[in-house]
């Protein structure tokens, strides 16, 4: 039973009121052993919004995504998705609610074929055969290379193809938000611009993206808003358009 159903007042009001963000992370703290990784991270992502998360290495960007995906459980703080608290839920429950996670290492299933990799997200209850076929067709239209290699093991793909597969696999969940961790790391420049186009296309289809990146120009171009994270805390937050005009925040938090 959801919280909305349990609440005594106004059950007829939809849990997401107009203007309420799709995803709200409020003051989450996580620890790895005794070391404090996230020291109260707060951020929001709107529907179909592309939001960037910038910061130096090891400041907690990836951990933030893992916490939202339910892979790391925050010790305190709250995560609300679509008006529902999700902190503490198992990762597979979070995924089925509509939060897809594309990790930095891609983590393709090496001994599943490309098609089987896609089916890990596709074979859900309540998805009709026609809908499954449509989702596969869409993924193959986005990434024709995957269609060519659909019967090949995931582990035999190149780095760029694995990144395509990781994004396509996330799309199979029909998510409302995709958590994308450094998708362009180690890719050829031509692939980098393709990834940027895909991120834009996802947003036009109504899918929000929370993008962790090292590539600052790409982030400013793709995102509407950007958060700067430092030592486990969000230090700064601005529209990407403003940051493109004034680089002082980028110099301050990234030292570039």
């Amino acid at each position, binding site marked *: 039973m959801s919280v909305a159903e349990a609440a005594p007042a106004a059950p007829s009001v939809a849990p997401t009121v107009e203007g309420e963000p799709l995803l709200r992370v409020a003051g989450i703290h996580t620890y790895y052993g005794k070391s404090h990784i996230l020291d109260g991270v707060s951020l929001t992502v709107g529907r179909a919004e592309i939001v960037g998360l910038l910061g130096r290495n090891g400041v907690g960007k990836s951990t933030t995504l893992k916490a939202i995906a339910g892979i790391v459980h925050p010790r305190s703080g709250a995560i609300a998705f679509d008006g529902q608290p999700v902190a503490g839920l198992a990762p597979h429950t979070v995924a089925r609610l509509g939060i897809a996670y594309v990790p930095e290492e891609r983590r393709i299933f090496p001994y599943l074929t490309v098609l*089987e990799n896609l089916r890990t997200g596709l074979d859900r209850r309540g998805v009709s055969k026609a809908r499954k076929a449509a989702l596969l067709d869409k993924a193959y239209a986005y990434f024709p290379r995957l269609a060519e290699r659909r019967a090949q093991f995931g582990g035999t793909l190149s780095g760029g193809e694995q990144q395509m597969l990781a994004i396509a696999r996330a799309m199979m969940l029909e998510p409302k938000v995709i958590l994308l961790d450094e998708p362009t790391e180690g890719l050829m420049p031509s692939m980098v611009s393709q990834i940027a186009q895909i991120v834009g296309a996802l947003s036009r289809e109504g899918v929000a993206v929370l993008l962790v990146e090292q590539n600052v120009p790409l982030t400013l171009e793709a995102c509407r808003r950007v958060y700067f994270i430092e030592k486990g805390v969000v230090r700064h937050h601005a529209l990407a358009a403003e940051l493109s005009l004034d680089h002082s925040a980028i110099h301050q938090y990234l030292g570039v």
Partner: protein
Amino acid sequence: MNIPFDQFLIQTINGIVTGMILAMVASGLTLIFGIMDVVNFAHGELFMLGAYVGVLTLAATGNFWIALIAATLAIAVLGAVIYLTTLRPLIGRDPLTTILATFGVSLVLQNYALWQFGPVARKIEEPITGHFSLFYLEYPYYRLAIAVLAVAIIGGLWLFLKHGTYGIWIRATTQDRVMAQAMGIPVPWVLTAVFAIGAGMAAASGVLFGPLVGVNSQMGTSWVLRAFIVVVVGGMGSISGSIAAAIFISLLEAYASLWVSPAQAVIVSFVVLILTLLFRPTGLFVPTPK
């Protein structure tokens, strides 16, 4: 020494029959190890309890095949219960704790069987009693039926893993548990189901093999030891490797018993184990690691 061809052929058939049973036990063991890194020391006791459930169901119904199915299902449920109560709470702990836990479970089950069923071995009647002439022997059809059934069950497992959603879920979980869960696969249920499948296969092997040896509370011990050897020689976690290793080792033991007594022939499997660990510790029947 000259070995007559007829003896050689008989031992080949014996080795394949034993090998198929061993392959069934070992593939459940290696499936469980592959997906959850748990070495299940209670596997032999699931084999033994399966045989006992077979004895009881056979006494109640008089039908061997019903007994086979009932034992498989009952022990699969028992396996799921053992997993949920004993192993799931240990996820994320030192692997040593799961070894101790499953070893503890094996002692409990073994002594439960001794207390419940007594020290005298029970008999499962062969469902197929016919014989055929094989040189100087009257060879029972049932032994061949065991091999055929074992092939069918292992083949069924292979088809289940290779095709269909649940097979994909199991393989994905084996390859990357965290990512499988991030893709929405209900990993806790997958692990429970895999443990139940492994347990059910052990139980089916126990019922199939029961008519050849008699059922007693100790019968699991020697099987699980041999199954461990097979799993290591075949490559930990590799089902095809385990099947190949089971047949390979059983054939070697069968041939060895042409010269020495069957009890001494067991030494062969230990020699193979030691040589494997020395020269190819990743397993004989898996591709060379890069």
